[in-house]
């Protein structure tokens, strides 16, 4: 008898819990309905901003200051960067997404194809941004992203081992070898290759991925990847059947370990790894990337920024927060101080360039080109790294590169 009574209560409790869970699952979280009803209450407006968890702290102060200035509360939500884009795409149109999301400029193709972000208008401020940042934030002639930081690869040098920057790639290997360490030079690869990290060497042989149309946008019909045969031959020469300076066995973790323990003289990497090297006690100098070919080694530039949700009810406040607040020098400098990545605003970038490491990345990024954001680039990534990895591991460079170009072309045509 006792059982029956208990089970009534327990069952009812369970049902309540289940119903609550079920409803929040299939429709929307209570927090989301708060946001959507916020404009009706009028008194306070809250902007919800999804940011990469690693940069949430950097933005907290800016959010507080903006609220003090305008009365608009900014709710900074730290999200895992690896799932942020997918969650945003899924939730943007359902009304439960954020008003603003932080992301990388190469998401633009996917975000606009899915129709989840709204155009911005930088107005006269457009010319205040670094040209590469503005270029990257523009998709199909329209600015969709408020650029906030510019990241590009540079050559990290252990200044205790090698005193002077290298003049070119061979000079770098010679200097590194002379330093007597196990690895003169490390670069992150892995069994599936890593074309992002090899791209500066590819451009040194004059072979970008896509050509540009008259308006300056990347043009999926002009695949220039095929011009990279000279690069492929060079890569073969650096691979397992050649000088063995580039290996698919070197993953990101191994490269980091070798450089931070002083076993490597040069490390081709981005600003995100500088802290680890400095913390490990390495005397780090940041140089431009030494070119193995006749042209400068241009890395890809990645531009971090903010997008406005097309289905936000707070688009006016969101535009104001981005363009009139985050796009100002003081805020960009403040964000740099807590984040440590080169600001996208020219004046802010100049203001922080007294830091030799930042100045080094800025100099290395002089020739940087934005990573293409067009959907066709997704097809390139599918085949690119695999082809490079097999060339490094001794596959015939000419045939492999030709196969790569053909595969990418047919994948682009087929989609």
């Amino acid at each position: 008898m006792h059982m029956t009574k208990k089970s009534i209560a327990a069952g009812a409790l369970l049902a309540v819990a289940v119903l609550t869970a079920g409803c929040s699952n299939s429709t929307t979280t209570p927090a989301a309905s708060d946001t959507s009803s916020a404009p009706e209450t009028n008194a306070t407006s809250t902007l919800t901003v999804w940011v990469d968890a690693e940069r949430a702290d950097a933005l907290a102060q800016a959010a507080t200051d903006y609220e003090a200035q305008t009365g608009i509360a900014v709710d900074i939500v730290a999200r895992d960067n690896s799932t942020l884009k997918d969650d945003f795409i899924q939730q943007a149109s359902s009304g439960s997404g954020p008003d603003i999301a932080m992301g990388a400029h190469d998401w633009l193709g996917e975000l606009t194809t899915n129709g989840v972000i709204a155009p911005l208008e930088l107005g006269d401020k457009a010319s205040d941004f670094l040209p590469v940042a503005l270029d990257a934030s523009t998709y199909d002639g329209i600015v969709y992203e408020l650029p906030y930081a510019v990241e590009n690869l540079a050559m990290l040098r252990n200044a205790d081992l090698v005193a002077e920057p290298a003049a070119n790639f061979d000079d770098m290997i010679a200097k590194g070898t002379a330093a007597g360490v196990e690895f003169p030079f490390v670069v992150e690869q892995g069994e599936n290759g890593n074309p992002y990290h090899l791209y500066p060497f590819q451009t040194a042989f004059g072979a970008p991925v896509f050509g540009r149309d008259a308006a300056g946008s990347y043009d999926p019909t002009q695949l220039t990847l095929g011009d990279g045969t000279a690069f492929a031959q060079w890569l073969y020469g650096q691979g397992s059947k050649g000088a063995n300076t580039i290996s698919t066995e070197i993953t990101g973790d191994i490269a980091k370990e070798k450089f931070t323990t002083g076993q490597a003289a040069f490390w081709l990497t981005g600003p995100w790894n500088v802290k680890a090297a400095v913390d490990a006690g390495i005397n780090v100098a940041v140089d431009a990337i030494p070119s193995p070919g006749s042209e400068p080694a241009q890395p890809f530039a990645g531009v971090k920024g903010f997008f406005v949700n097309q289905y936000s009810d707070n688009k006016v406040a969101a535009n104001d927060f981005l363009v009139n607040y985050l796009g100002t020098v003081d805020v960009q400098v403040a964000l740099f101080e807590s984040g440590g990545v080169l600001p996208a605003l020219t004046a802010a970038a100049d203001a922080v360039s007294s830091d030799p490491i930042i100045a080094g990345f800025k100099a290395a990024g002089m020739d940087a080109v934005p990573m293409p954001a067009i959907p066709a680039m997704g097809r390139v990534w599918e085949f690119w790294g695999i082809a490079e990895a097999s060339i490094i591991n001794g596959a015939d460079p000419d045939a492999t590169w030709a196969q790569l170009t053909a595969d990418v072309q047919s994948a682009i045509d087929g989609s």
Partner: protein
Amino acid sequence: MTDLRSAPTRSTGMGTLVAKITVLGGLDALAVFLGAVLVSRGDYVIAALVVVGAIVLTVIYLSERLLPAKYMAPGLVFLAIFQVFVIGYTVYIAFTNYSTGHILTQDQAVEALLSQSQRRLPDSPSYSVTVVESNSQLGLLVTAPDGTALLGTADSPLRPVDATFQDGQAVAVEGYTSLRFADLLGRQDEVFSLAVPLADDASAGSLRTLDGRTAYQYTSKLSFDPASETLTDTETGEVYVDGGEGAFVGEDGTEILPGWQVNVGLDNFTRAVSEPSIRGPLVYVTAWTIAFAALSVGIIFALGLLMALLFNDPSMRGRTAYRIVMVLPYAFPAFLGAMVWSGMLSQSFGFINQVVLGGASIPWLTDPTLAKISVLMVNLWLGFPYMFLVATGALQAIPGEVREAARVDGTSRWQMLRHIELPLLLISMAPILIATFAFNFNNFNVIYLVTGGGPRDTGAGIPVGQTDILISLVYKVAFTGQNRDYGLASAFSIIIFIVVAAISVISFRRTKTLEEIS
């Protein structure tokens, strides 16, 4: 019977009744609240489900009959939410074109296309604006570059007005109320969509403000005709019509995205089996999936049983210590185990090659055949302790008299195993073997963490690897790259479900025959 049924009525005390009413009342209040929220959001179906569910639960727990339902209701609710809903939704997605570029509704897609087609006129000036209101209609009070004031609303183009200036900016005009920025926050959609024509001629474009402070001249590259549901390119005159596949299509057949989600019938299933770039990989991935699951069950069972037989022998000393060691891989989190193995099998830096094999360079994870063997071995390491535990239990459950009788009859050890222990074991273990097969058929963790499906099959048109099983292929189709195809991935999931279900049904039939034999 009568006793049982009447008992609750008699013994239901005041306290219990109050508790029951409180809890059910709380549940119903919550359901009413959720229902109201859902109806206001337009989710009528879910609102109806919540309300009906709450009524059914209330009736079940208030009624004095329906005793079985009282026990089953919570389980059924869980079943509905976590199984029926998920499977139903997957089936639904499999019949849609839900994928990159097709995630919106048609109305949303039109909104996005129109928004993306707004172009600022090249070299046009920026205007500082004050948003003004008259009879709840919004207008823009604009300060032109030459310092004069202009006023316009959505219906009336800009015209010069006499305005009050402050710091060179027009801030107020007679007949209109100026709105402060804080006032705009309550009606942002209105402000954002306000387009004031520059002149009577529409081709001059219109003035819009995105932030309520500055306005720019825009023209729209596309215009939408709600009556015919077509988009027209205002520059070229090309008309885009609904192509029936969830996107607007131009005269020459070019699709413009974003599109929207539509039902595509069996298209995803047809594509899975007919598109050469998918069909080829699908065939050998299916073959490898079945081989992987079957071989995994085989070797895990063999090793688990062997260990169980060895450690079940009373003459063995220190059995307890050995058994604890045996069970360690099972106690170790499988995720961690798989990742550690992946690191240990690395070609030039892995523990196996470097230490165990003294500096050998065996491509454990990058050679197609060796990679298959590697994932099987890791799976064996992860899986055999469980089988060992179950087999030990099953062996110990075989009555000693049966063995005694066999021994008296003079059977050899092998005959005893073959004709007595194994058949008896299989009765209790067959369902576990079937479950292990079904589990390994979808053993995403091991594949994803050890090889990531690699090495890549460079010849295939989709990013598929030599050790990919169906579920990791589904993952790659749905969740990697820039071209997600949730519809196709859901169709694959249903194919997997059918295969696993069919194999399980057949196996359980066989098990029944087994039981009849004994």
